């Protein structure tokens, strides 16, 4: 019994001993994969309208991500490729790969509550933000650090984030994203955390627009695999055109 108590106290001490930077590095690592192959469904709800998309997504490291739309028929064949700070899109209607730039990156991704920039910025928190642990709270029964993150450079999409990081999995289970003036823009939840091939992974994400009420995007991973060998071609513009 005394061993158990000692182990508990040590774990608590270890938990508190982590600095914010260490937590953010851990989050970045946790959401970064040597290789990821997943199938997912994105359901976008705007008031009474709902539309679902089926996609296949590949990821490698922090900076490479490729995605192909499988459904609905109109969007089938649309592909996206992110490499570091650049984003390309293959548009089957004009059979062309087009590099996206400028203000377009702030547009909604398929009418969802996420922008193209949300995809680009997803795993650079430690570099982009200064964080402070402001509290420890329970989120859906799980212990989480509540961290206030202020952007080092205000040109990022969200100059301020409040994140709740699950202490067991280092997954940011809840995020509140703010504009420069402090207005809450979006909430982003990560749910249904499962252990897949040795890694903890949120199988569901829910993003809600707090400005346009009734706008909600739900992403459900139907299949995720990390132990895959992805061909080099997947992360090239050749793959987009194929």
């Amino acid at each position: 019994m005394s061993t158990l108590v000692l182990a508990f106290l040590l774990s608590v001490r270890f938990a508190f001993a982590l600095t914010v930077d260490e937590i953010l590095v851990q989050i970045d690592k946790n959401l970064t994969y040597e290789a990821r192959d997943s199938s997912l469904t994105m359901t976008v709800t705007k008031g009474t309208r709902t539309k679902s998309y089926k996609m296949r997504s590949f990821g490698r490291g922090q900076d490479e991500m490729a995605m192909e739309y499988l459904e609905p028929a109109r969007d089938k064949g649309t592909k996206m490729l992110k490499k570091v700070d650049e984003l390309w899109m293959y548009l089957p209607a004009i059979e062309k790969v087009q590099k996206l730039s400028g203000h377009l990156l702030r547009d909604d991704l398929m009418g969802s509550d996420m922008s193209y920039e949300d995809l680009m910025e997803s795993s650079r928190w430690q570099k982009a933000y200064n964080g402070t642990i402001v509290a420890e709270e329970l989120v859906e029964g799980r212990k989480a650090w509540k961290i206030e993150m202020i952007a080092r450079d205000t040109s990022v999409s969200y100059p301020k984030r409040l994140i709740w990081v699950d202490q067991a999995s280092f997954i940011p289970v809840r995020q509140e994203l703010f504009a420069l003036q402090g207005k809450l823009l979006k909430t982003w939840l990560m749910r249904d955390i499962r252990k897949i091939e040795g890694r903890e992974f949120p199988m569901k994400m829910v993003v809600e627009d707090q400005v346009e009420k009734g706008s909600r995007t739900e992403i459900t991973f139907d299949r995720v695999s990390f132990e895959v060998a992805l061909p080099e071609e997947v992360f090239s513009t050749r793959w987009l055109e194929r």
Partner: protein
Amino acid sequence: MGILLQLAFRNLGRNRRRTLLTVLTVALGTGLLTVALSMLTGILLDTLKFAAAAVGHVRVVDPEYARRDQLMPLAYNLPDVAAVVAAAEGQPGVLSAHPHIMMGVTGAREDQDIGENFSLLHGAPIAYYTDILDLDVYLSSGRLPAKDGEAVLGETFAAELDVKVGGVVIVLGQTQDGSPSPARLEVVGLVDLGNKNVNRQTFVLLSQAQWLADLEGGATEVLVHTADHDDADEVAAALRSQSALSAYDVAAWNERPPFDSVGAFLQAVRGIVSGIIVFITGLGVLNTMLMSVLERTNEIGVMRAMGLTSSQTRAMFLVEAVTIAAFGGVVGVSLGSGVAFYLSRVGIHLGEAVAKAPAGIPLHETVYPHASVDTVVLAFLLGLAMAVVGGILPAWRASRIQPVEAMRHRR
């Protein structure tokens, strides 16, 4: 009264140089007023004509679209636009009803990245472009689109993309659900609509825009046109009472922003400009008349002693002022009308300042004054107002002069 008039006219002739100077001041004021009022009327009419043509004398949209007008939400559309057009065209007083789609797109040449240059894309039947917008008149080169895959670009947008007639552009918009929706368009024409902001537009056929927005058989709005934009309120009320249109938002052009405030704004500017000119010219008249009162203090004293009442004294000076204003007004409106008429033919180039005006207020870089009988009469009446403004104080001073003190007064 006859003797007062005689005295007034005689007094005007006593210091001819001063009278002439005052007449010229009033002439300059009324002339300026005629030109200024003609110019403001020209801007107002130009705005109304352009606004009515571009946005429809009456517009039928989904109520949610009307609420979020500025965002142009494609999701709130008219799915069966043919039924709405048929209902509107059946209404007496309606000349035409056209389905229309308006959406934001970003454009690029084939060899450019996309996302830096934005355009407002219009999709409408060709009749809307030729009969309502007169787009063929504004073509600076090429022709109007004849089929899907063809577009007319505003000159600003074309210059930003560095594309000419015969070139190809990629436009990327969104479907009503928000999916990216691209089109490869051949540029068949360029238009110069007279304003840099307005020239950042793209015009395609309705079917092309329907494909881009994924709105087959639909449109975001139906634009209804009447014989005169003044009929819009009446026709809008009649359309609202139709059961086929009861689910939609039906509004006359002057009930919608920014046009619900532009007219009042221009009228306010007209009032302010007129007020300033009347005030300044009035000061000129005031100066002359005050000098006249001072010079004639002794004489006024004698006339008051002989029985001229205060009100008769006031009337005499006011008659002098109004007579000056009448002469000056005739000269001023004649010259002003001539200048306004000339400018109405050649136009006044306002330049960049107008191009930077807030989007949605369609002012042209070149303004054509509108000289009309109404404007001339108004300028003349305001010229008389100048005289009254400038003549009241001297007349009042003259009427307060006591005969004994006046006769002691030294020049």
